[in-house]
């Protein structure tokens, strides 16, 4: 009944979900608006006492109680980690469910529930992002995909998956007929997809990404990765040449290393795959994800690309309109398109 009335209304509705290592983002179309909701996918455990609970409640800090521990969730987890000079815990590592954080699964489910909410009717289609199979790690994404599909089914959705790189193309390359390369520089992984008229030619991921940069810098300078991450997210400027701090200098070095690595892998993957004839025209490359946020990232990428022996003619390299939201937006496009074809 509800489904019928919703389907008959002219305005389309639907949700798309980006399950990232750092953030869970939901995009929801409500009438003439798209509403984005996000929550940092991290937590920090502290001792559960009445005092700490009261203190957190008063400060409006989100927490989840699990046995004797009180887990601070969201952005505050990172703040607490920096306060105690410890690392915040992540339920996801390198883009997939962390094998050492299985106890965090109920918490991820809860975070997911608060971000996406209940479906409007049982069996509502929802596309969620999954990483491409990693080129440089010995694991696949089957377990990860099924666990999240299970969570979403439990909530009443009909979950369908979309590769993160393809979601970026759906979100940003409509003017280019959905032809080009979409790259999502996330925290746990960099996801790449080359698509020709919305059909993926190849899609893959590499496990060097934002977290890898944080860890390498932290190791080199005896800092915690959480602190490096906070500096990277809040004040890193890759164009800065004077008065560069040690952390900024190290971040800049590892950003260069990461970009080289990603471009090399795209070249290698392209050589392995068959080139469609439609790709004779110069293509567009679109960059998205949280790790693209530092000022000067786009110029750095272009420099690395110019230096490389890239096998395709590149017309334009651009940033996604909203780098942190484009995967969720692409997943929403997939949901709405699927609903239309029903």
């Amino acid at each position: 009944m509800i489904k019928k009335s919703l389907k008959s209304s002219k305005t389309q509705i639907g949700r798309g979900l980006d399950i990232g290592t750092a953030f869970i983002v939901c995009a929801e179309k409500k009438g003439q608006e798209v509403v984005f909701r996000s929550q940092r996918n991290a937590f920090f455990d502290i001792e559960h006492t009445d005092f700490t609970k009261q203190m957190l409640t008063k400060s409006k800090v989100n927490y989840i109680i699990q046995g004797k521990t009180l887990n601070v969730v969201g952005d505050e987890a990172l703040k607490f980690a920096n306060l105690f000079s410890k690392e915040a815990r992540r339920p996801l590592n390198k883009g997939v469910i962390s094998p050492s954080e299985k106890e965090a699964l109920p918490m991820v489910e809860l975070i997911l529930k608060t971000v996406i909410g209940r479906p409007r009717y049982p069996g509502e289609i929802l596309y969620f992002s999954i990483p491409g199979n990693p080129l440089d790690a010995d694991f696949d994404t089957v377990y990860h995909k099924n666990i999240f599909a299970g969570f979403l089914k439990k909530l009443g959705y009909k979950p369908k998956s979309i590769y993160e790189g393809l979601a970026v193309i759906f979100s940003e390359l409509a003017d280019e007929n959905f032809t080009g390369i979409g790259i999502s520089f996330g925290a746990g992984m960099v996801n790449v997809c080359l698509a020709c008229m919305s059909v993926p030619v190849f899609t893959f991921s590499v496990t060097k990404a934002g977290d890898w940069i944080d860890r390498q810098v932290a190791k080199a300078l005896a800092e915690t990765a959480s602190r490096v991450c906070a500096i990277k997210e809040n004040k890193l400027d890759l164009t800065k040449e004077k008065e560069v701090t040690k952390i900024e200098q190290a971040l800049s070095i590892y950003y260069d290393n990461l970009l080289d690595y990603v471009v090399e892998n795209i070249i290698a993957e392209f050589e392995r795959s068959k080139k469609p004839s439609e790709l004779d025209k110069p293509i567009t490359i679109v960059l998205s994800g949280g790790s693209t946020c530092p000022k000067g990232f786009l110029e750095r990428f272009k420099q690395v690309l110019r230096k490389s022996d890239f096998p395709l003619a590149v017309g334009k390299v651009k940033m996604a309109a909203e780098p942190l939201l484009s995967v969720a937006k692409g997943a929403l496009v997939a949901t709405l398109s699927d609903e239309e074809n029903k």
Partner: protein
Amino acid sequence: MSLSGTEFNIIKIFAESKEASLGLIADKAILTIGYAEYLCKYLVKGGYLELTPRGTYCLTLQGREALTGKTRQILWDQRTIQAIAQELAKQLGGTVFPRAGRKLKREVEPSAPARKAIMIKESFVDPMEPGIILKHSLSRKPKELRTSSVGIEKTLKALKKLK
């Protein structure tokens, strides 16, 4: 039970000291106390660590082997091996250690063991314990960012045209 990187890092702490408190483990492995406690309990359950009466942790034999990379050796003498072999022979109805020159007589005809059909469960199996209800303060929805849907509608039209 195989050890993860973090678990092995905890084991490595005991290369420097015989015993370690939870605080020291958390400090050296750069973990929160809660997480260090969780991992230590897991390692105790797996037989790698044990809790001392002083409330500290120390390595078990299995933990030391994991640290040094040695496996446990079972040193049995020849007589014990022979006794076990004879007992096995009795139960299986065969002959063990035939005298030189005599061919081993096969007394039991090998038969193909009945194979169990492999059932593949296609439905999703929830790996979590059922009925875990967590108390939380996440009643508020996260902050929202609203944008116009014009861009999405344009994208959908382009996608439809393509199809």
